[in-house]
C-alpha cells in the first residue's frame, strides 16, 4: 500500500513534468545561481541557476524510461528463453542455463563499461547494459518456476489431450507463473533505477543537459563544501523510488502469491 502510493507519486511527478514544471530544468541563468528554497524555486537553484525541483521532476521521467525499457528487454527475452528451456528441456535448456550462468559474471556496470568503451557514453547504452543484465535473471526464474508447473497433473492432462508444447506454454504455464514474474519485475525495476543512477553518476549514462538523478549527484558532489543540500535531494529521490518499488514488490508478492509471502 505504502509502496504503491510512493510509486504512484513518482509516476504522477513524471507525468506532470511532461507538460509542467515549477521552473526550468534546462535554462541556465547565472544570476539565479545557488538561490535558497522559495515560492519560485521550491528546492532552490543549482550552480547554473537551474530549478532543482524541476530537474528532479524531469529526472523522474528519465529514470522511469530507462528502467521500463531495460526491464522490458530482460522480461521479453529472459522470459521467452526461460519458457523455451522449460518446454524443450535437454540441450536447449542446458545451453540457455549455461549461458545465463556466465552472464552473471557481468553485472550491469561491467557491461556498461564495456559498451561505453566501444560505443561512447549515453542513455541508450545504459539501457542496453541494464537490460542485458536482466535477461539471465528472468530466464532462470522463469525456467525454474515453469519446470515446476510442467510436472503438474493439469499440464499432463493437457498433454494427454493432444495440446502442443507451445499451446500449453501459453495456456497453462505462463498464466501460472505470471505473478512471480511480476513481483520479480518490480524488484528489477528498483535495481534498474539504482543502476541507471550509478551509471549517470559515473558519466556513462544519461548525458547533459538532460537532467538525471545520478548526474545531479555527480555535479552536487563538487559543491559539497558550498551547498551540501544539493547532494541530498537527488539521493533522496532515488531512495524514495527504490524503497517504494521494493515495498510494492513485497506487497504484490503477498497479494499475488500468498504461498510465497513471508509467513514469519
Amino acid at each position, binding site marked *: 500500500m505504502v509502496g504503491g502510493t510512493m510509486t504512484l507519486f513518482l509516476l504522477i511527478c513524471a507525468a506532470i513534468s511532461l507538460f509542467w514544471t515549477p521552473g526550468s530544468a534546462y535554462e541556465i541563468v547565472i544570476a539565479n545561481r545557488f538561490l535558497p528554497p522559495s515560492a519560485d524555486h521550491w528546492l532552490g537553484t543549482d550552480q547554473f541557476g537551474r530549478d532543482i525541483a524541476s530537474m528532479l521532476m524531469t529526472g523522474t521521467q528519465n529514470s522511469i524510461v530507462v528502467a521500463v525499457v531495460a526491464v522490458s528487454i530482460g522480461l521479453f527475452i529472459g522470459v521467452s528463453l526461460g519458457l523455451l528451456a522449460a518446454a524443450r528441456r535437454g540441450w536447449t535448456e542446458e545451453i540457455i542455463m549455461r549461458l545465463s550462468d556466465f552472464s552473471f559474471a557481468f*553485472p550491469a556496470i561491467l557491461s556498461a*563499461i564495456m559498451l561505453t568503451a566501444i560505443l561512447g557514453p549515453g542513455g541508450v547504452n545504459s539501457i542496453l547494459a541494464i537490460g542485458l543484465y536482466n535477461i539471465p535473471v528472468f530466464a532462470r526464474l522463469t525456467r525454474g518456476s515453469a519446470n515446476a508447473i510442467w510436472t503438474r497433473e493439469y499440464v499432463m492432462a493437457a498433454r494427454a489431450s493432444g495440446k502442443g508444447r507451445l499451446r500449453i506454454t501459453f495456456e497453462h504455464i505462463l498464466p501460472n507463473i505470471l505473478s512471480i514474474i511480476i513481483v520479480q519485475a518490480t524488484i528489477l525495476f528498483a535495481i534498474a533505477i539504482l543502476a541507471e543512477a550509478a551509471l549517470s*553518476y559515473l558519466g556513462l549514462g544519461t548525458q547533459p543537459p538532460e537532467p538525471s538523478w545520478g548526474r545531479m*549527484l555527480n555535479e552536487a558532489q563538487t559543491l*559539497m563544501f558550498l551547498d*551540501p543540500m544539493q*547532494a541530498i535531494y537527488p539521493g533522496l529521490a532515488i531512495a524514495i523510488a527504490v524503497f517504494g518499488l521494493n515495498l510494492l514488490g513485497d506487497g504484490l508478492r503477498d497479494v499475488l502469491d500468498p504461498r510465497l509471502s513471508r509467513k514469519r
Partner: protein
Amino acid sequence: MSVFIAKRVLTLIATLIGASMVIFLVMEILPGDPALVILGVDASESAVQTLTKELGLDRPPLERYISWITGLLQGELGNSYAYKVPVWELVQGALLITLPLAIMSIILSIVLALVIGLYAAANHNKAGDVTLMGISQLGISIPNFWLAILLIILFAIELRWLPAGGFPGWDEGILKCLTALLLPSLALATVVGAILARITRSSVLEVFREDYVRTARAKGLSQRATLWRHVLRNALIPVLTVTGIQFAALLTGTVVVENVFHIPGLGSLVLKAINNRDTIVVENVVLLLATMVITVNFLVDILYAVIDPRLKAHDI
C-alpha cells in the same frame, strides 16, 4: 570430495574461457576501430593504418584472441595506449587498493549482518526486530554512492574526523591507508550488510524451528549453546550463498564508490581508461573483475560442500 572439486574446477575454467571470449567479442569485434578512436575522427587514413598495424589489429580475430590469452597467462598484458606503460603495472597498483577495500567491506558487512540478524532473530517480532528490519529495508534502498557522499558530508566536512577522499599510498603506513578506506568500505558495507542481515534473520528463525534444535533444547542445552552449536552452522549456509552473490554487487559498487572518494583503484582506472579510449586497459580490467566474481562464486560452491556435505553428495 575430489570428484566434486574436479567438476567445479572444470566449470570454473569453462566459465573463465567463456567470459574472456565475450569480452573479446564485445571489445574487438563490435563495430568501432580502436585506432580511429585513439587518433580521433580527423586522423589521416595512413596514420590510422600505421597504428592499426602497430597495435596488431590487422591480424585475424582468432589469432588476436589466442595471443591475448597466452599473454595473460604469461603476465604480459601489453602496453596501455594512453600511458605507454605495461597494463599489468597499472592494474597491479589499482588492485592493491581495490582488493583491500573489497575485503574490508565484505568483513564489515558480515559483522553488521550477524550482529543485526542475530539480534533481530533473538527478539523476533519485538520492537527491536521491527525497527532493525525497517532500517535494513531502508539500507537496501539507498544507493551506495549517495551514502558515500552523505558520509563525506558528515564525517569529513561537518565533524572533520576522517579524510574526504584520496589515498595516501601504502608507503605512508597501514593505519593511514585503512583510515582512508574506512568511509568507502562503510558506504559499501551498509547496503550489502542490510541484505545479509535480513537473510541471517530469516535463516536463523527457520533453523530454530527444526526438530534437532527442539531436541537440543529438550536435552537441556541453553538457548545460547544451541545457537552456537546447532543453529549458526546450519543457518549460515544461505547467508554464505547470498554473500557470494553480493560480492559481485560489492565489486561493481567499488567501481562507483572509488570514484566518489577519488581512490585510485580499479574503478577509477577503468573509468579513466574509458575517457582516454584506452581499450586495452578496459578489456583487461573488465576481465579481471569478471574473474574475481567467477572465482568467488567458485569458492562459495566449494565452501558449501565443506559446511553441508549433503550438497556435495547430491551433486556427485
